[in-house]
C-alpha cells in the first residue's frame, strides 16, 4: 500500500489529469462547432424559384404565426420591430437560418438559437416577404465553391472579417454591448454570402464593389472549410482566443504539474522539532509581529540549546 501511495499514485495523477484535460477540452471544441454540419456550398434545399404560389401561400400562414406579432400582419413593422418590406430575401433567409429570428424577447443583439423551422418553411417565409415588396439583396442562388480559392479567401477574410470575428473566427465582444458571433455557427456557404452582402446589425455591409462575388465565394470557402475545421495539427486549440489561454495553460498546467512533481521529489516542511505547544524553535512567541527581528545572536543561543538536547526520538 505504501508503494502505491508513494509511487504509482503520482503517475496515475498525471495520466488521469492529462486524460481529463484532453477530454474536457475536446468536448469544448466539439460543442463549439455546429451540430449540423452541412455540405458547404449547398443550401439546405435548392429553392430554385421563390415565386411559387404554393410557397407564398404557405409562407403567409407561417409568417402570421411566427412573425406578425412584432413585424405586423403585412410585414409593415410596428413599435416592436422594423418593417420587412423591401428588405430582401437574403436578409430574411439569413436571420431565420441563423436562428436570430424569431426573437423571444427584445434584446440588444439577438443570439443564435436552435432553429425549429424546417428549411422548407424558411423558404416559404422568404418567398412571402419577398412577394410583398421587391428590393434588397436577393437570396444567393447556384452557390458553388468549385472555383473558390482558399488563399484569396484567407487574405480577404483577414483584412475584412478578422478585426471583429478574430482570425480564428471565434468571435469576440465589441463595444456598446454588441458582439461579433463565433463563425463556428456558420451553417453553410450561402449563410456566409448572405451575411457578407446584407451586413446584419452592426456588421458592415460589403457590396460587390467592396468584396467581389468571386472573393465572397473565396471567403465562404475559407469560413466553411478552414474556420469550421481548423487545421489544429498541434493539438487542442484552446478556443482560438489568443495567447492568454496558452498563458493560463502554461502557468497552471505546465508550471503547476512541475510543482506537483517537485512536491513528490523533495521533502516537506520540517516535521518538526517543534514541541507540542506550538512554539517553534525560532524563539518567537505566537502572534509576535516580526519586523525588526533581533540579530542572529538570539537565534544562535536557541539553536545551540536545541542541538545539544535534540528532541527527536532515537
Amino acid at each position, binding site marked *: 500500500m505504501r508503494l502505491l501511495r508513494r509511487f504509482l499514485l503520482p503517475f496515475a495523477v498525471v495520466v488521469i489529469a492529462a486524460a481529463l484535460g484532453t477530454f474536457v477540452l475536446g468536448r469544448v471544441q466539439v460543442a463549439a462547432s455546429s451540430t449540423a454540419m452541412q455540405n458547404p456550398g449547398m443550401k439546405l434545399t435548392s429553392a430554385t424559384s421563390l415565386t411559387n404560389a404554393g410557397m407564398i401561400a404557405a409562407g403567409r400562414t407561417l409568417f402570421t404565426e411566427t412573425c406578425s406579432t412584432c413585424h405586423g400582419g403585412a410585414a409593415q413593422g410596428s413599435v416592436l420591430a422594423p418593417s420587412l418590406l423591401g428588405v430582401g430575401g437574403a436578409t430574411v433567409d439569413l436571420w431565420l437560418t441563423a436562428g436570430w429570428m424569431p426573437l423571444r424577447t427584445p434584446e440588444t443583439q439577438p443570439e443564435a438559437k436552435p432553429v425549429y423551422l424546417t428549411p422548407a418553411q424558411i423558404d416559404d417565409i422568404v418567398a412571402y416577404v419577398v412577394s410583398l415588396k421587391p428590393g434588397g439583396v436577393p437570396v444567393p442562388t447556384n452557390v458553388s465553391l468549385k472555383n473558390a480559392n482558399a488563399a484569396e479567401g484567407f487574405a480577404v477574410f*483577414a483584412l475584412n472579417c478578422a478585426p471583429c470575428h478574430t482570425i480564428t473566427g471565434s468571435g*469576440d465582444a465589441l463595444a456598446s454591448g454588441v458582439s461579433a458571433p463565433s463563425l463556428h455557427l456558420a451553417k453553410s456557404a450561402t449563410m456566409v454570402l448572405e451575411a457578407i452582402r446584407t451586413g446584419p446589425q452592426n456588421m458592415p455591409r460589403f457590396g460587390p464593389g467592396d468584396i467581389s462575388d468571386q472573393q465572397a465565394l473565396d471567403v465562404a470557402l475559407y469560413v466553411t472549410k478552414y474556420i469550421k475545421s481548423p487545421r489544429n495539427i498541434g493539438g487542442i486549440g484552446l478556443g482560438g482566443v489568443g495567447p492568454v489561454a*496558452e498563458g493560463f495553460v502554461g502557468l497552471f498546467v505546465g508550471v503547476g504539474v512541475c510543482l506537483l512533481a517537485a512536491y513528490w521529489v523533495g521533502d516537506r*516542511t520540517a516535521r518538526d*522539532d517543534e514541541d507540542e505547544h506550538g512554539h517553534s524553535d525560532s524563539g518567537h512567541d505566537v502572534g509576535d509581529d516580526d519586523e525588526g*527581528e533581533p540579530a542572529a545572536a538570539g*537565534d544562535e543561543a536557541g539553536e545551540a540549546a536545541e542541538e545539544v538536547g535534540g528532541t527527536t*526520538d*532515537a
Partner: protein
Amino acid sequence: MINGLYDWIDDRVNISGGGRKMVNKIFPDHWSFMIGEIALYSFVILLATGVFLTLYFVPSSSDAVYTGPYLPLDGVHMSEAFLSTVNLSFSVRCGLLMRQMHHWSANIFVGAIVVHMCRVFFTGGFRRPRELNWIIGMNMLILAIFNGFLGYSLPDDLVSGTGIRISYSILETIPLVGTYLANFLFGGSFPGNSLIPRFYVLHVLILPAIIAGLLGAHLTLLVRQKHTQFKGHGATEHNVIGAPMWPTFIAKTNGFLFLVAAVTAILGALVQINPIWLYGPYRPYVVTYAVQPDWYMGWLDGGLRIMPHWQTVIAGHVIIPNAFWPAIVLPGITFTVLMMWPFIEQRITGDRADHQLLDRPRDRPKRTALGAAVLSFYFTLFGASATDVLANYLHVSLNSVLTSFQILVFAVPIVTYPVALKICRELQATAGGGKTKLHNIVIRSAEGGYSTVPSERRPGDTPPELEPVALDTSVILPALVASPSYEAVDRSGLGARAAADGLEGPEGNGAAAEGNGAEPTRRGVFRIPRNYR
C-alpha cells in the same frame, strides 16, 4: 577502465582535491528549493529545442512565396521568416513538436522564474549575504521576458507583428530619445527590413549568452554560499542538512530534468500553441481581434488597456504620450523596486545580519501580505489583458468589463493585504499548523474544558528523523552493500589504516554481531581526527 580514465585526468588536473568537497556537498531537500531547477531545466530544453529550430528558421524579411500542403497560404507572398516557420510546422519532421516544446518551455521558464522569485521573497532568501544573487536573478527575469518577446515575434505572423507595432509606438513615447531609439533599433520607420534579423541575433545569440553567464554566476554564488534551509531537522545557521550530491542529489535532480522535459513534451504533443498558420503573415494594415501578448507581458497589455486617456500637452506639444505611463513607467518602477528589495527591507527592518535559515512565510506576516498584495495587483493586470475575451464569454458589455478592471486593479491588492496578514497570524496561532499531524488524545476535564496530549508513536507513523551525519568530517563506506569484510569496499583503505593505528573507539567491534558469520568483520567504530590521512 573508468578508474583508468579517472586517474589519467586526475593526474593532470587534480580533480580529487576539490572533487571530494563537491561529492559530499549537501543540498537541503525541501521541495520548494526545486522551483529554481524547473527554470534551469526549462532553459536547457530551450537551448536544445532552439538549436533544432535554428537549423530551419530563416531570419529574413525578404519576400517569398509559399507552396506547400497548407492551402490557405498556397501562393501567398510572405516573409522568409514566416515561410520557414510554416515549413517547420507542416513539412519538417518533428518540426512542429520542437516549435511547440520550445514555446511551452519558454512559458514554463518565465513562470518558474516568477514562482522561484516568490519563494525566495516569501522565505527571505534574498537577505544578506544573498542580495547579489537576488539581483542576478531579477536581471535574468527581465532578460527572459524580453527574450521570450523576441522569440515569439520571430515568425513574423499577424499576432506577434501587431505586438511589435505596439512596441515601436511605445519606444517612441519615451521623452527626448524615444523617436531616435525607435528608429535606431528598428533601422528606420516601421516596419522596415532589419527587424527580424536583429531580433534573431538578439534572441539566439546575445541574450542567451548573457542569461547563461548570469546563470553561471547565480549557481556559482549558490555553491559558494551554500543553499539556505528551513529550521528543523537540526538545521542551524552554521550547518547544512540534507542529501549529498553523490548519489542522492544527482539522481533526483537528473530525474527532475526528465520530468520537466516530460511535461514539456506532453504539452507540446497535446496542446497547440502559437498556430501561426492560422494567423497568417503579418501585414501592417491587417489586424485581428482577441490579440494579447504572451502571458508574461500580459500585465503590460492590461495596463495599456485600462489606462485612462490622459496625455500631457504643454504649449501644443505632447510631452508625455499616453502609453508612456503603463508601458515604460510601470515596468520601470516594478523592476527597480523588485531589484532593490533586499536593501529596502534592510532599511525598514534594520536587520543587516547574515541569514542562512529561511523564514516560513507565516513568520513574517507583513512581508508575506505585502508580497501577496503586489502579486495580486500584477495578476489583475494580467487579467485585464483579456477584457474582450472575458466580456464575450461572460456575456457582459465590454465597457463594463474595462471599468471593472480599473476598479479591481486597486481593490484587489487592498483586500488581499489584510486577508493575507490575517491568514499568516492565524497560522502562527494554530499549534502545529501545517505540520504533519501527530495523533492526539483528547481529554475532557471535570469543568468541561478540552485539552490534548500527543499519543505514543504507532507503528505506521512516519519514522522519526535521525541525527544528521557530518560528511565533511566522516568516512562513508557503503553499508548497504553487504560484504564479508569492508576492506573490499574500502577503496581508500582508511578503515584498515585506522584499525592498524589503533584508532578503534571504545565501542570496539560491537557491530560484529550483525556481521555475516564466522569471519571477523572489520566493521567498527573509529575515532578519526579531522585531518587524518
